[in-house]
């Protein structure tokens, strides 16, 4: 049981990063990006195909995947920023649902129904230790993901607070119309956020824990665990999103150790989403301010 719970930490941090990126996207571009994992996955499979067909190096393939994901994400962002500049968050997010379908269907056509799984870039353990008679491992993936999460959190907060780029992004997030009036290039900045987010999700996937399933749809739907994590911070606080991700991972690990419940470990995410939505809506909110 301890083993399983501890093993949940790595996917937990992974969910946490997805949650952090979803939160930042929701704050900075007013979109809940359902296509996020799909974008990263698509880049990943392009890279994998190149490994198989062109025999290129694994790290180079990861770089190719990163570029593809960033560009794809940028295109989706550009479409939304061009045609729905002032639309509500639900309308903007709905477009990403259609984009997700397009990505999954395209992947199935291009890469075939029978595809091999992603191989993580790193597979070794950095440390192992004993608690009682249980042997616990700390994998390289875990360390890299945790560092990545912290880098994104601290980096984004520094970027937003310390650079003019960040100040402009926050201005857009506060009042898009007013930002446009004082000459901020809203569209370019918005698309920039999409590109960066696509690149970051691609990096994250490269260090994904091997245990996570990856047929096209369940892989793309890891965005659900990410949004559950983001909900813990109400799509506002990226630090709480990381915490939420870890919480989900650990809980899933714990549940999978119980023989009676192991088959239902995915329900953890669903129940967390239910609980946090109920909690978040305790106050009455109207669709428009007046």
């Amino acid at each position, binding site marked *: 049981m301890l083993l399983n719970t501890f093993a949940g930490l790595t996917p937990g941090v992974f969910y946490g990063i997805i949650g952090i990126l979803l939160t930042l996207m929701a704050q900075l571009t007013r979109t809940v990006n359902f296509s996020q994992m799909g974008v990263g996955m698509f880049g990943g499979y392009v890279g994998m195909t190149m490994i198989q067909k062109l025999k290129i190096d694994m790290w180079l393939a990861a770089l190719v995947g990163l570029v593809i994901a960033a560009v794809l994400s940028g295109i989706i962002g550009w479409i939304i920023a061009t045609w729905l500049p002032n639309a509500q968050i639900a309308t903007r997010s709905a477009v990403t649902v259609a984009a997700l379908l397009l990505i999954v269907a395209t992947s199935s056509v291009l890469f075939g129904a029978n595809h091999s799984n992603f191989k993580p870039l790193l597979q070794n353990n950095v440390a192992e230790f004993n608690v009682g008679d249980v042997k616990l491992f700390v994998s390289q993936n875990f360390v890299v993901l945790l560092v990545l999460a912290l880098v994104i959190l601290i980096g984004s907060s520094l970027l937003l607070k310390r650079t003019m780029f960040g100040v402009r992004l*926050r201005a857009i997030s506060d009042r898009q119309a*007013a930002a*446009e*009036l004082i*000459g901020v290039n809203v569209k370019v900045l918005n698309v920039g956020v999409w590109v960066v987010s696509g690149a970051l999700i691609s990096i994250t996937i490269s260090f994904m824990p091997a245990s996570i399933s990856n047929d096209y749809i369940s892989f793309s739907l890891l965005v659900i665990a990410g949004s559950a994590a983001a909900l813990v911070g109400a799509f506002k606080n990226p630090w709480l999103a990381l915490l939420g991700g870890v919480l989900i991972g650990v809980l899933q690990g714990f549940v999978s150790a119980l023989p009676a419940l192991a088959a239902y470990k995915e329900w953890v995410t669903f129940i967390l989403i239910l609980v946090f939505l109920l909690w978040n809506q305790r106050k009455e909110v109207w669709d428009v301010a007046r």
Partner: protein
Amino acid sequence: MSLVLNDVTVSRGVGPVISNVTLEVKPGQITTLVGPNGAGKTSLIESIAGVIIPSSGSVVMNDVDITKFSKRKRSRAGLAIVEQGRMIFPSLTVRENLQLTARTKSDFDEAMALFPELEKRMNNNTVLLSGGEQQMVVLARAFASKPKYLLLDEMSLGLAPVVFMRLLPVIEGIAKSGVGVLLVEQFAHLALGIAEDAMVVTSGRVSYHGSPKKLTSDAELMRKSYMGE
């Protein structure tokens, strides 16, 4: 060299909200536009700002036709607009609000110098400021972009007159530095007091254009403009 609205008509939904308005804002001068609620003052400002595109007529700035310019292009051409309401960026500090528009350190310092009382609030989030201070930030932010023309839409909204009076000499100072100011106000007397040129807009048309002094002294004209027949 001036900012000119040529025979502008703006339609919204039903019919024209502004009909054939022509006006000119000269550099270094304050033009005050007054009129009751719903007369079309805001639509007028928005047609200059590029928020709405006039259905006919043109907007010309220093001999360049900017009628079809995007909002960003207008701003880069030297137009600064302070919209109605407190158009601060609430999660940004006073400093960051000004940094958004100031291109150089000296632009920033000059803008800060307009309101020395903001100095100690420099690193506070603007959402925590009082209404008057927020309008100071907005005005300073507009000035920091070194505009050629400055449009101010109802800065006094929801402010006590004393607070608004603090802003007036600053607006005068900005005009003296060579900026053409269009001051759109419902609070007529204070705004007319600092103007070189005055206009009254009622029901989308210019019903008076001339000296501000003559307007303020004509009580009957003022009453009619505001309270109807």
